[in-house]
């Protein structure tokens, strides 16, 4: 049987990187989106999987970069079975606080929306010809525990939160269009993860944080296994519980 093929965005580190590892171990040919120049973890992994790991330059803030990545992927495949959107922008100064010390920075709000919500939507549109020829037709999006309006308890710092809520809406609308065409969806809430450093070590700020390897292993089960109720779009937590919008 021919290897299945997956595209993973935001694969430089953390959950995205661990998802790439999991997929390679399962025999997938993986196109791994690379953005961070100071992380070389994918290059090291390439030594282990020279035939099945393809590192692709991919900046989710740039539509042109997404189109360039599409052209590069098309050089070695004419189909994709699995799409995993993991790239996220959550850096920047605290400039999305009401009455905060800094004025609200609308440029950073828009960058957040572009990377976290618009980028995945553009990716699906641009890679659609390859996804159409894939057998699995599964679209997976990494959202966040803080994207739930219903459970919202933050009192400031809304930039990342609102961008992930917008992503949830984009996924809902993609689901409306594509489920009837045979696509299935996963919207995954990985929890609060420890950050992976350039050397692969993990930085921890809280005991609540979970390891990205653990979150990736759980995600694989959710991403690759079929569900009896595929028609239902649900945000799933790493602990297996549904998460309200």
């Amino acid at each position: 049987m021919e290897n299945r093929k997956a595209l993973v965005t935001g694969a430089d580190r953390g959950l995205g990187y661990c998802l790439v590892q999991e997929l390679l171990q399962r025999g997938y040919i993986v196109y791994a989106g690379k953005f961070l120049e100071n992380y070389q973890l994918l290059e090291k992994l390439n030594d282990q999987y020279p035939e099945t790991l393809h590192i692709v330059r991919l900046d989710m803030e740039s539509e042109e970069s997404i189109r360039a990545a599409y052209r590069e992927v098309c050089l070695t495949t004419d189909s994709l079975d699995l799409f995993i959107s993991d790239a996220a922008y959550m850096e920047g100064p605290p400039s999305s606080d009401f009455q905060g010390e800094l004025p609200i920075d609308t440029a950073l709000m828009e960058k957040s929306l572009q990377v976290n919500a618009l980028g995945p939507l553009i990716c699906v549109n641009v890679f659609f010809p390859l996804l159409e020829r894939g057998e699995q037709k599964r679209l997976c999006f990494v959202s966040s525990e803080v994207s739930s309006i219903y459970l919202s308890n933050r009192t400031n710092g809304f930039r990342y939160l609102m961008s992930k809520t917008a992503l949830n809406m984009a996924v809902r609308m993609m689901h409306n269009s594509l489920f009837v065409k045979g696509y299935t969806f996963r919207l995954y809430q990985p929890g609060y993860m420890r950050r992976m450093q350039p050397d692969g070590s993990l930085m921890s700020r809280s005991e609540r944080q979970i390891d990205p390897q653990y979150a990736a292993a759980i995600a694989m089960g959710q991403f690759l296994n079929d569900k009896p109720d595929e028609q239902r779009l649900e945000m799933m937590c790493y602990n297996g519980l549904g998460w309200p919008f």
Partner: protein
Amino acid sequence: MIAYLTQLSSPFSQLLANAFRQRNIDVVSGILSDTDTVIDFFVATENNPPAGDTFDVINGIDSKLIMDTFSHLVSAPVVALNQVLPFMGKSDMKRICFLSSSLASINMCAETTGYAYNMSKAALHMILSVAWNHYQPEDYSFRLYDPMTQGQMDHRVTAEIAAETFVEYCVKERAYDPPNMRKERNDERLIMRDALGREWPW
């Protein structure tokens, strides 16, 4: 009392202004320079879906339209709210009012087009949720309202009725609820209601 409207240029915002004035509530807009001004109502009126928001995920995404719409429907009114908040602290009303739409309900959205509007308003709902968490303990109250002048529903209402019912919704206090139903009291959680009085899920 004074209502601050984020803009007065659109026909709908003029209807809103008239409806406030009919209730003897003054209407202001633009930059507030007098530091003694007390604003009772902040009203964000930006709600029109942009022309051209008809693409879908298969046939092409107009990323510029999405970003422009976000800037207009989210960034601008949120910045305006942040600027007006210091003028609301001395008000007895302290009411923050936004127009939105049931189209932006992630639970209920059945649309395949309208990404620019729906994503922007969904993002706005989260920002308002954060604002609610921050300011509700300081006795601010919120009104998030679908005027039903556009969208998927059959029961559209005229702009005149929508403006009137929105202002009515802004100014009135909500019905008494028993204390043991605290979480169900409308002013103790952020909700979105439409012109027919229905609450929409997020």
